[in-house]
């Protein structure tokens, strides 16, 4: 927890349900609009969080998505207990994907998510341990 006047939201991300993936990002977008933040930052947060949330479902077993809105920044933390990422540098490369054919048929698995999260956020931190899980933190300056 940082300042006392920061806003916190927390969402459970169901790793078994592809259809509900993105609900946390959708709700966050709605709430950020209600806060009256500018459209550009809302769009960047929504895209980056959605990519991360989809990853939690298609590559891991779901987890928790936390959103913290401070005076000067938004912090998105996505924590899963999935298989983890062995080589983060490789995972960050455009086009690298371990997604199955099944996932591709659903419209994902181009290996563009992590690079897009980096592009849209001001800071992207990936903490991962094979067999334990992954924690993705994204910071957006307001």
């Amino acid at each position, binding site marked *: 927890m940082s300042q006392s006047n920061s806003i916190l939201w927390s969402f459970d991300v169901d790793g078994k349900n*592809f*259809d*509900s*993936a*993105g609900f946390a*990002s*959708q709700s966050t*977008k709605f709430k950020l609009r209600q806060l009256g933040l500018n*459209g550009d930052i809302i*769009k960047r947060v*929504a*895209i980056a969080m*959605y*990519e991360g949330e*989809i990853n939690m479902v298609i590559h891991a077993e779901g987890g928790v998505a936390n959103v913290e809105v401070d005076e000067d920044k938004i912090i998105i933390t996505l924590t899963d207990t999935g298989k983890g990422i062995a080589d983060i540098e490789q995972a960050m490369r455009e086009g690298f994907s371990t997604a199955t054919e099944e996932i*591709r048929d*659903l*419209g*994902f*698995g*181009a*290996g*563009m*998510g992590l*690079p*897009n999260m980096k*592009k849209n956020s001001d800071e992207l931190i990936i903490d991962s341990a094979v067999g334990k899980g992954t924690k993705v933190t994204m910071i957006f300056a307001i």
Partner: protein
Amino acid sequence: MTIRDVVELLKAEVICGEEFLDNEIKSACGCDMMSDVLAFVKTQPMLLTGLVNPQVIRTALMMDMKCVAFVRNKKPDEKVIGLAKEHEIVLLSSPYRMYDACGVLYTSGLRGEGACE
């Protein structure tokens, strides 16, 4: 052009969002990979796609899109339609295949965003 013009050009059925047909659409994109829509699209307010799962609507929502046209007569289920209604996204279903649907709109003046960087 307006979404109403798109409906006419695509010979489309309006699945939902009848009340927004007079809204202006300035450009569009056609894609079946939501990953690519999220990574490459900039400000196109309309998506043509052959996929009908809920992530198509969520992708459109994250990208601030106003209209999704399904090609090849595809139609999403009620849940997906409900999601689109909730977010005021117009859904259309066109009998054209992807290439033809894009071509019809493009030659009528609805362009994309050109080459990527």
